[in-house]
């Protein structure tokens, strides 16, 4: 596809780009937030790697722990899976929350953020929109983990309703948690330092919690 030569803008055409229409009314806070949410979805579409990271990681953990340690830790792999899966689910989603902070950090570097900040819109819409986009990521990741679990033989006690309400609870929890990363994203300079900080906080927490091992067996 040849790009520039085919459609060379001439002076006449450029002049037609100048709108003499009146400025439309400002969008509402909700409409601006949804528009930013749409931007987040477009980002997932164009940069699917961000989904790859957060799905491969938990799938790997799930398989690894189930088959390597499952027998040792809980007697049998299927028994261990019953304990492990909800934990992996929580962990996955919590890790995704970090992306919100990182996305915002990228924006600040790119200069897109500058443009958003000079728009006459409800300013927090940028953040709310990013968080809405994250909610979609949480849902996708949860679905994958649960689907894999079902294949491996996970049988939830609560049935379908129980699983759905657990996911919903998780979404609310993550939505709240992502505000922390967002706040940090504004304070920290680089995405790397944000990543490092969040890992520092999250890793010990997930290991100490009851995700991998029954707390009863801990010292």
């Amino acid at each position: 596809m040849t790009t520039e030569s085919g459609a060379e803008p001439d002076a006449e055409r450029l002049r037609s780009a100048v709108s003499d229409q009146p400025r439309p009314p400002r969008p509402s806070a909700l409409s601006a937030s949804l528009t930013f949410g749409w931007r987040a979805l477009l980002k997932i579409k164009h940069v699917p790697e961000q989904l790859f990271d957060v799905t491969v990681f938990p799938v790997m953990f799930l398989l690894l722990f189930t088959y390597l340690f499952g027998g040792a830790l809980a007697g049998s792999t299927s028994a261990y899976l019953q304990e492990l899966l909800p934990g992996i689910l929580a962990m996955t989603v919590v890790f995704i929350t970090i992306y919100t902070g990182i996305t915002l950090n990228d924006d600040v570097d790119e200069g897109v953020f500058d443009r958003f900040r000079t728009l006459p819109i409800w300013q927090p819409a940028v953040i709310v929109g990013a968080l809405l986009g994250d909610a979609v990521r949480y849902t996708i990741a949860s679905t994958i983990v649960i689907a894999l679990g079902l294949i491996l033989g996970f049988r939830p006690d609560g049935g379908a309703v129980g699983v759905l309400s657990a996911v919903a609870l998780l979404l609310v929890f993550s939505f709240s948690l992502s505000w922390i990363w967002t706040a940090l994203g504004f304070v920290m300079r680089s995405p790397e330092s944000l990543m490092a900080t969040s890992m520092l906080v999250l890793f010990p927490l997930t290991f100490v919690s009851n995700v991998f091992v029954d707390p009863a067996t801990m010292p």
Partner: protein
Amino acid sequence: MTEHSSPRHTADLTEPAGLEGSVSADRSGANSGATPGDFGPSKDSALAIETEELVKHFGETKAVDGVDLAVPAGGIYGLLGPNGAGKTTMIRMLATLLQPDAGTARVFGHDVGADADAVRGRVSMTGQFASVDEDLTGHENLVLLARLLGYSRREAKARTIEQLEAFGLTDAASRQVKTYSGGMRRRLDIAASIVVTPELLFLDEPTTGLDPRNRSQVWEIIRALVANGTTVLLTTQYLEEADQLADRIAVIDDGRIVAEGTPRDLKASIGSGVLNVRVRDPGQREEARQALTRILNAPVKLESDPAALSARIADTNRIAHAFVELSQAEIAVTDFALGQPSLDEVFLALTDRDDRDTHTDRASRDGRDKAAAGGRSR
């Protein structure tokens, strides 16, 4: 567009005499700095930008160090300065992105701090580095902005298609911006700034890094906007660009305005140009220098190229004599060109003096004498 881009200002543009009259009055007020009250109330309303003692420091760096600027509504105002002069910092403060440390800045009478929302409703900015989303396509970028500016989904699409067409980006519309060339990216960036025609447009070095064709396209769109009533504040490192486009220019260096006026004033204050000469035999350079100094009655500088000389000249009539003199002295010349003073020379001329503050409100003729004197002392 609203009441601020009243036809009166556009009319001013077509009548240079009227513009000259009003701005020279502005200038005396703006540059004396201490007397901002000089502006009458009627003049206030004709100002797109007005700053008083604007200051922004980053630690030890005085990025903007007490700037008084008065930009009349309508037309193009150029902010000319070298790297690190404080141009971007100025624009970011005026576009509500940075809080000033001290002083005030008003855009169409609205304070950029206290009344930021009103300012945002009137301005739009194309940053020095592309302010579009690299991951999205050109089409998505424009629709996103159109939606954020209040267009309905359908209107946003229609406006986007119209703009892509006008900017020659239709073919690339569905590609991610990160695959765009520098020129395409710049065009998209400017398109994104004029989805809704702003009353005041900030363009931070819009043509740096563009080839001549892309550069003239950018100039074309700027002129089209101005014809439509928009005021443009443009930063540039190129004297030629400011000269071509701007109705008025402020030269900024080290966070301070060192000169302000029409391009004509400014050029007059630094002499009419620079004569560049290259001799074939570097051994004859000293001889050539003496001959040129005598004829031009101006200091002649030896360039780092061992065969090249240059002289800042006030009087172009003497150039022919200089050429004759060189050929009579049998000095073979390979290059003999009269050029605009480079930005370097503008800065040397404008900053190579101790009374920097008094310079700015001096009339152009006066400035020319001073510039010549400054050159001689070097």
